[in-house]
């Protein structure tokens, strides 16, 4: 939590701010989704309310808040009400455990006639020491929201959606976890900040104690070490977030609207926030594991710190964190756009195709990736057990 009132307050505000970041990115993404789909399908999309249709979001929010609050008569009211809240929790917890920028160092300063000692604020809600494992564990709880929604509504379509969702989540979680094992082996740590620090600098392979510098014009990103793992992780993330082409749980042609058939108004919106939160966490993980996190060639905490050398150390540290946060968010926005792009490009899988892809294609490839990475690291980094 923190040593004194100031540190505790800042840490608390940080957590709330990161939660609000997740919630506030949803209306923007909905706008991008609608305008983007219109662009892809050669339509206009919402363009009447406000500039570029941006205030359509406000109108939507008012509609969500003033809709009739409907509860199915034969359902289980407690579970029915709990499901939308459960949908938001995993993404919010996972997002708070991921660093969004470099740590901010605050020098000792005077306030209210008292000296407040030097602080180091991480740009994340909390640091549990098991980074990746915590994020994986918390996001694996996301299936319960769909199960609770399907069960609490007491509706056949909702139930089918919930069953599909849980089977799908379990199938793809294996491939996702195994592809992340390759990353953990590569960076030899669970900590996100250490992973990003290892990706700063030029690409230098180390083979049998020799350095291969032929490709040193490229950055030292994980994608060049784990291309297969990156593809498997990204595909599994689509399934985890229930996005097309993996949105079988809410397939509108077969199941009305799947697990959220009985939900409307703000409760439906909370499922939406959960889904977009998962997309956000997935994009962040992709960027941190494979695309250098908040670093770029020539842009890392040390070099950016030198740009602001004229300012006082506290201000320089804060500005550095802001610049690096901008770099990270630019990359994340790119991956969010890929999520939307794929949704409006590919058709939905059939259910048996989904299961075959998960169990017979992605799981064996992810296993092979893990084993090959382990063998290669053993030979290349520690030749013959040194």
């Amino acid at each position, binding site marked *: 939590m923190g040593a004194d009132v100031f540190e505790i307050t800042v840490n608390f505000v940080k957590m709330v701010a990161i939660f609000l970041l997740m919630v506030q990115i949803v209306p923007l993404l909905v706008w991008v989704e609608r305008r983007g789909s219109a662009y892809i399908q050669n339509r206009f999309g919402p363009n009447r309310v406000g500039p570029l249709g941006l205030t359509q979001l406000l109108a939507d929010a008012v509609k969500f808040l003033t809709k009739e609050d409907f509860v199915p008569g034969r359902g289980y009211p407690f579970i029915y009400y709990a499901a939308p809240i459960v949908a938001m929790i995993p993404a919010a917890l996972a997002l708070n455990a991921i660093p969004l920028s470099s740590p901010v160092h605050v020098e000792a300063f005077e306030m209210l006639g008292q000296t407040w000692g030097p602080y180091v604020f991480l740009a994340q809600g909390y640091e549990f020491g098991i980074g990746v494992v915590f994020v994986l564990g918390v996001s*694996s709880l996301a299936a319960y929201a769909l199960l609770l929604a399907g069960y609490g509504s007491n509706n056949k379509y909702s139930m089918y959606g919930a069953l599909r969702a849980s089977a799908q989540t379990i199938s793809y979680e294996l491939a996702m976890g195994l592809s992340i094992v390759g990353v953990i082996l590569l960076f030899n740590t669970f900590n996100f900040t250490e992973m990003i620090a290892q990706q700063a600098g030029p690409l230098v392979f180390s083979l049998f104690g020799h350095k291969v510098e032929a490709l040193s014009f490229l950055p030292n990103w994980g994608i060049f070490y784990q291309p297969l793992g990156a593809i498997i992780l990204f595909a599994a993330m689509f399934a985890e977030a229930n996005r097309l082409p993996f949105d079988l749980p809410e397939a509108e042609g077969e199941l009305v609207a799947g697990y959220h058939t009985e939900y409307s108004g703000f409760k439906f919106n909370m499922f939406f926030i959960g889904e977009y939160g998962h997309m956000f966490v997935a994009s962040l993980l992709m960027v941190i594991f494979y695309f250098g996190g908040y670093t770029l060639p020539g842009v890392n905490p040390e070099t950016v710190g030198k740009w602001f050398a004229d300012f006082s150390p506290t201000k320089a540290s804060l500005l550095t964190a802001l610049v690096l946060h901008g770099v990270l968010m630019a990359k994340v926005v790119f991956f969010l756009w890929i999520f939307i792009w794929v949704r409006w490009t590919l058709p939905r899988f059939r259910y048996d195709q989904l299961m075959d892809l998960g169990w017979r294609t992605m799981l064996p490839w992810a296993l092979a990736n893990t084993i090959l990475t382990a063998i290669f690291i053993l030979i290349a980094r520690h030749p013959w057990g040194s």
Partner: protein
Amino acid sequence: MLWEAIGFYSLAFFLIFFAYKTITAINPIHSALYLVLTMIGLAAVFYDLGAHFIAGVQLIVYAGAVMVLFVMVLMLFDLRAELRAFSRGLFSGMLKIISAGLLAGIFFAGSDSSIAILDTPAAAPSADVSRQLGILLYTKYLYAFEALGVLLLVVAVGVVAVSRIKGGTHARH
């Protein structure tokens, strides 16, 4: 120490409450959902006692995978016959007496070391803890670890064999 004790005992209280509701809930799905809460609470207790990696694995494996399967299977099947079989009769009566005896034993053993459990050794960095865990698993406990792997493989093969006999989409014709 006081705050740690309050945290630990409130966690323990919720854990026992959820475990109690797991065995008393009539509806099997409600019972399974309480078991999910118990598993999540167990992960929190592991974390509280300094076993960070085990807490994460508890979340991923038990709360995230095993219990999702439990709830899904319970939703798929109609369990009235099984409910009747386990609510009366000699067999379930024996089970109840045995589990009451086990609970009493755990209670007496636990009350003996009630606060000493909070005296965890000085916390090492958790990456090192998981490294030591891996080294122990692959050296000292290698045979137990491999035997567990073989057991799970046997179970998986058995399940496939049974489900192919009973029919289904991948049945032998």
